[in-house]
């Protein structure tokens, strides 16, 4: 990812917008009694577009902001989401994304990872209660929701971050190179048909 001040501002806005949207909307709606979790999918998409470092930093920031706004011990959300973003970025660096299904499937798998990670953090902080089997249903449904969220997020964020994407820049350069070069005298003039 080509990081410019403009792109950094966009990333900050995406992370803040994602956290506020999660807390104000997604956490408070229920589909089949389960609230969708946007943040792991968002971090996965950022990792896929920007690489492991971008994924990790965005994940850490999103987790930190989430913990701050929920007034819970800091660090838990950061740890889980930075791992999620890093893994997504690592996938992008190691493998080619051949199919349009890869990002949503990765969102689904890494949301499952993130939910288990949140569970592990909870256990680490002290856990003294029976666990209902409904947790399994909730976690699986959250992963399925993440599939659809990831689909939309990948398409949307790819468009928003297009100027910063390395492969997009390469494609643009190739496109420019393929265009036939006009003689110096013809440059800047409209084609004959258009003039008529």
């Amino acid at each position, binding site marked *: 990812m080509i990081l410019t001040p403009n792109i950094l501002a966009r990333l900050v806005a995406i992370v803040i917008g994602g956290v*506020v949207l999660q*807390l*104000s909307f997604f956490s408070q709606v229920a589909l089949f009694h389960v*609230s969708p979790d946007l943040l792991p999918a968002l971090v996965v998409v950022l990792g896929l577009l920007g690489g492991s470092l971008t994924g990790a930093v965005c994940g850490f920031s999103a987790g930190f902001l989430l913990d701050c*706004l929920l007034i819970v011990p800091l660090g838990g959300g950061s740890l889980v989401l930075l791992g999620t973003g*890093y893994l997504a970025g690592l996938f992008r660096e190691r493998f080619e994304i051949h199919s349009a299904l890869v990002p949503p499937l990765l969102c689904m798998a890494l949301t499952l990872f993130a939910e288990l990670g949140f569970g592990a953090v909870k256990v680490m*902080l002290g856990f003294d*209660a029976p666990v209902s*089997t409904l*947790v399994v249903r909730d976690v699986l449904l959250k992963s399925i929701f993440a599939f659809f969220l990831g689909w939309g997020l990948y398409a949307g964020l790819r468009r928003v971050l297009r100027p910063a994407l390395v492969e997009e820049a390469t494609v643009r350069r190739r496109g420019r190179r393929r265009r036939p070069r006009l003689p110096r005298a013809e440059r800047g003039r409209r084609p004959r048909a258009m003039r008529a």
Partner: protein
Amino acid sequence: MYRKQVRRRRAVLALLIVGSFVLLTVTYGQGSDGVQRGVSTIFSPLQSVADRALKPARDLVNWFDETFDAKGRNERLHDELEAAREQAVGSQAALAENEQLRNLVGLDRGGAIPSGYDPVTARVIARSPTVWFADVTVDVGSGDGVEVDDPVVSGDGLIGTVAAVTGSTARVTLIADSSSAVSAKIVPSGVQGVLKPSVGDPGDLVLDFLDSEKRVGKGQSVVTAGWRAEELESNYPPNLPIGEVTEASLVEQEAQQQVHVRPFADLRELDLVQVLTGGSRG
């Protein structure tokens, strides 16, 4: 060049992981620190605006969910209505008797909220996104008189307690959170126990440590016990409604000394709540 990049990437990753663990270690067990208070103060107006702006969209999505759910709920409500009709006759008499007794002893309290508490109405503006933490954030804080450990109720009954406070917001740990434990009693039998959650299922709480010699029946109501021992006192005032017993098998009562309780309040869909400030906790 590539090696340098990899080294830098690993260094940043290590720094972030160490940072997360340091933050966890430093902030664990504390209510709220300066950073959280600052961030919360900056973002709470934005959250409030987003909360109000997104309410129609939330209602729309929840409407779909409720429609799916309505069919099953309809049958259950029919059964409950029948049982409620039978109880209503007895309750009317009990209410009248209760009113007379209240007047006799000079109690002028209208509802379940005991005197000495000042209810502060709050709106839920955020909710923990994972299934492992049952917390909500409300839009009142220390500026409104809210303190840590204040009990929080909805229109249906107890929902939790304040766990952390900033100037304008507060975190409420719901009774469905794994860290929650409420001393409760069953009415009218008076059997006492500790109400703990079953993580992942906010509609099922477990009333534990019951006296195995006393029988508890399905449908009996559970309220806060509100104990007091010398200078120590429960965080919860007595007789706040919590829920009703849904499962009370003899085997479970004798072997594990526990019964299952469904909370009156729908902990998944909280909008307006009341924080009971003040009180006389020791």
